[in-house]
């Protein structure tokens, strides 16, 4: 009996392990690190952005956006059924593939808006000169769906007062991140309602 239980436990452990392995390959790469954070590199993104997006981001109001999205979803469902009936393939596989595509599109949206935010902050942040110090400070931003900055908070200041002050000065210059208007509401809620800006100084002369 004990042996059977042990085998069962081992089986479940292997199952769990395999599920984790599968999860790694079954979703698009979201650049999730150990602390489960999405990190965005602006310079890569600008290049990706050029390739990924042929047309500029829509800036139409949120309501129209939602209608448009539901129409797309409807069309996707029809396509899904048609594909399944035509090729008689596993419905679950198709659903997974569609999930992957949706996630990929979400990722593109998040990356695009992140890149714009990154560029806007970079253009107003007057970084103090701190040659030999590598500094990091983290600011938590609370946004309204309109893009208005409701609040920001230096949650992890660096050891350098001037560096912290320069960040607060830059943040005080910003009032809106209206770029989030181009995102679906659920994407906004998931990613931009609260997000972090991580200011870094490499300690190198630039």
């Amino acid at each position: 009996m004990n042996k059977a239980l042990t085998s069962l436990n081992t089986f479940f452990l292997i199952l769990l392990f395999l599920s984790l392995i599968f999860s790694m390959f079954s979703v698009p790469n979201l650049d999730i690190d150990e602390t489960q954070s999405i990190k965005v590199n602006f310079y890569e993104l600008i290049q990706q952005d050029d390739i990924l997006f042929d047309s500029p981001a829509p800036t139409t109001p949120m309501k129209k956006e939602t209608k448009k999205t539901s129409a797309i979803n409807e069309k996707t469902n029809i396509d899904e059924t048609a594909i399944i009936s035509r090729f008689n393939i596993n419905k679950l596989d198709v659903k997974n593939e569609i999930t992957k595509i949706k996630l990929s599109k979400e990722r593109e949206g998040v990356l695009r808006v992140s890149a714009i935010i990154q560029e806007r902050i970079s253009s107003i942040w007057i970084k103090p000169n701190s040659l030999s110090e590598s500094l990091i400070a983290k600011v938590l931003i609370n946004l309204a769906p309109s893009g208005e900055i409701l609040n920001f908070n230096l949650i992890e200041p660096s050891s350098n007062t001037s560096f912290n002050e320069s960040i607060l000065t830059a943040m005080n210059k910003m009032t809106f991140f209206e770029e989030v208007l181009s995102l679906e509401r659920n994407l906004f809620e998931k990613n931009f309602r609260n997000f972090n800006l991580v200011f870094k100084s490499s300690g190198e002369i630039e």
Partner: protein
Amino acid sequence: MIRSLSLLFFLVSNSIFSILEIEILKGSDNLSKVAFVPFGIESGIEGNYGSQISKNIEKNMLLFGEFENLAVNEMLSYPSSENDFYYRDWKVLGVDYSVIGKINSVNALGNLNISYSLFNINRRIKILEGEIVGREDNIEGISKIISNRIYEEITGLRGIFDTKLAYVINSDADTYQMCISDIDGKNEQILFTSKAPIMSPDWSPDRKKIAYVSFENGLAEIFIQDLQSGERDSIQALGMTNSAPVWSPDGRSLALVVSFSGNPDIFLYSINNKRLIRLTNHYGIDTEPSWSPDSKKIIFTSDRSGSPQLYEINTKSKRKKRLTKDGNYNARGRYFPDGKSIFFVHGNDGNFQIATKKLSSRYIETLTSTSLDESPTISPNGNIIIYATKDGSNGYLGGITLDGKSRFSLPVKNGSVREPAWSPLLN
């Protein structure tokens, strides 16, 4: 089934624990814009001290190109106290900081009482408030003190407007002058004039003396000159020639180059007991020593590997370490005030430029874009490098801030200017 479960597990865990993080690595190339409002004067006080002081502060703050100013005629108001100060008047003009002040009183002895404030417009807060008393015939000195405080508040670095510069002017083929001046070029003093070359000036840590090399007696000889009395003493170390003196951070000894039978090596010279201690002993040329800020190490140039490269020697253990490997010319090394990086002259394809290197890194960063740069010296706050360079045959002093945002040249002197040495801060 497993795949679906695992995907669900992943999505749930992701949505519960993750928060988007956007990294900001690059800052703006723009400069902070500062409004220097003419200082107000309490009624009944004569003279235009108010505008004199604000103009001096403005000149100081703009000296190294680190800030942008707002012209006085573009200002919407001229407040002299916090009660008259409205942030919107400055925000609308894109100002980042505003400096205001007032001459409150002048007493019978000619002492001015001055108050001043600094505002961060974007944060809508007063970040500095001060009061200073100084003589009316020392407006420049008072302005420098206020400028230093403002600079320190904005940048977090020590203010350097009361520092000085030593340099050598070669006014014609046969005249060399050892000079010092304020860092803005004013109040120039000629310490010594010679028909023979003068080189390698270096300030004592207390700013009271300067050591330099003079060829007035035919051979390279080190002199120490007292700035107050003007007295000069040759240190008369042993050997054929003595050169490249550099004061230790405690001011008790000099690192220098002594050449016995034509082979230059690095020595330490104790000023009190006039003893020489040998640091290097190599058939190659060892020269241009300089102390680390903690006095434990000395950087020097040596051609022991076949080309001039920088080395570091521990003054106690005498253990040596090569610091540069890139290129076939790296010389005249100096430590940054924090001791973590060095700057030096880097030669590449016949161009000689000022470069920096973190001691923890193997990479060299070239700072300047001119081609015949030499003798770099750093501001005591570690933020600006001044170096000698050439425009045709004429030598002048160029400067650069370490963030690379500002490049400038110092006022042209009557002759070729070489060998700049930035003084330490007044303690």
